[in-house]
């Protein structure tokens, strides 16, 4: 931008109107500084744009105001409450649906036998994870009963502890085939003396297994929920499957004849 004598007055008016950016305003003031004849003109134009500082107060301003009734205030609140209620309702329905869904799912996973059968079929069909293992009862001579648990108890410290025969049975059948080195901890039933009901489990009588074993390992004060035990049952079943496979492979390895090739010679190794 180049200022000259022809249009400087236009810029002076724009400056008095406060419509110039800072850079242009500085350039105009610099030009006026270099040409003193324009100083009075600039001062006169600036005097015409004196900002009024007089205070004007509208009398009786309250007469202009409109009342906000309780209904209007409630409407304002209602809009925000409506949104909050919708969010809470959606969350509540979702939580209720989840709880209902979990309570309908059977408490046990597939048994080891079912998993073995599934493997024998070559995993052609999806495993039925909703198979329910039937409980069994076993009585010994001491009139102690060990009852199988269909549903594990919710809290470990309430009431007597029952054995989980439902899961121990398949493992017990395979006990004879298990090599000694790979024998798992003996799956024992936790027997109950009806005369002795205790919140705690006597360690020397118990080699915990399955759900009862997990529960026994937990602190007494810890509330154990059904769905956590359900996951543990599934894990136990899978571990037992893996154990069976490992046993089979161990047996195979024992009977295998290794042939080591060193150069042209072949040396059998038992």
């Amino acid at each position: 931008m180049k200022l000259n004598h022809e249009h400087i007055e236009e810029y002076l008016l724009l400056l008095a109107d406060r419509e110039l950016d800072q850079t242009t305003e500085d350039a105009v003031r610099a030009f006026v500084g270099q040409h003193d004849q324009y100083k009075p003109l600039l001062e006169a134009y600036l005097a015409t744009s004196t900002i009024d500082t007089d205070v004007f107060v509208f009398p009786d301003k309250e007469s202009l105001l409109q009342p906000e009734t309780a209904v209007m205030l409630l409407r304002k609140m209602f809009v925000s409450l409506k949104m909050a209620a919708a969010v809470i309702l959606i969350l509540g329905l979702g939580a209720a649906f989840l709880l209902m869904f979990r309570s309908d799912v059977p408490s046990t996973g597939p048994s080891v036998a079912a998993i073995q059968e599934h493997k024998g079929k070559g995993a052609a069909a999806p495993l039925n994870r909703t198979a329910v293992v039937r409980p069994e009862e076993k009585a010994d001579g001491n009139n102690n009963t060990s009852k199988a648990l269909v549903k594990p108890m919710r809290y470990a410290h309430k009431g007597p502890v029952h054995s989980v025969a439902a899961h121990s049975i398949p493992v017990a059948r395979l006990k004879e085939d298990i090599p000694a080195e790979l024998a798992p901890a003996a799956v024992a039933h936790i027997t109950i003396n009806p005369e002795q009901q205790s919140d705690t489990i006597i360690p020397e009588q118990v080699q915990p297994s399955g759900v009862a074993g997990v529960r026994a390992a937990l602190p007494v004060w810890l509330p154990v929920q059904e769905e956590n035990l359900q996951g543990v049952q599934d894990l136990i079943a899978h571990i037992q499957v893996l154990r069976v496979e490992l046993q089979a492979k161990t047996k195979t390895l024992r009977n295998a004849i290794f042939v080591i090739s060193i150069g042209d010679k072949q040396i059998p190794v038992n």
Partner: protein
Amino acid sequence: MTTSEYNQCVHELADGLYRFACKSIGDKEEAKDMVQQAFTVLWEKREEVPPDKGKSYLFTITYRKCMDVHRARGRTTDAERLHENFLSEQPQTSDLKKILQKALATLDEQSRNLVLLKDYEGYRYEEIAKVTGLNSTQVRVYLHRARKILKNYLVSKEHVI
């Protein structure tokens, strides 16, 4: 625009609107009526006016009412007399302000309103154009003419500054 937003407009703009109307037409009572009418119209049309357009809406209404008053009055000398009476009622006004306000009274209604919107309310050319219905070039030209008139009044022999 809700009721609370309307009430907020009353608190923020009533005084400035009153000042604009007073300086434009020079009559306090008429300016008060004009402001009340402007807010009444805003209240009736509140559902059509967004909250951020309240100021320009009110000043547009007041500007048009001021122009209507000037047209109804007819002769300019009457307006000048009114302005002089109005100025005499203002307390503690400096000499420059008094002379400037007298100079304002010599302008026509449209130029005076443009100067008031520019210098007293701080509007830019585009905002003044929206309020008055002119385009920004017209606003700039009319304002520059008005400022030259005011400058000539201020530097004349009777009113040397």
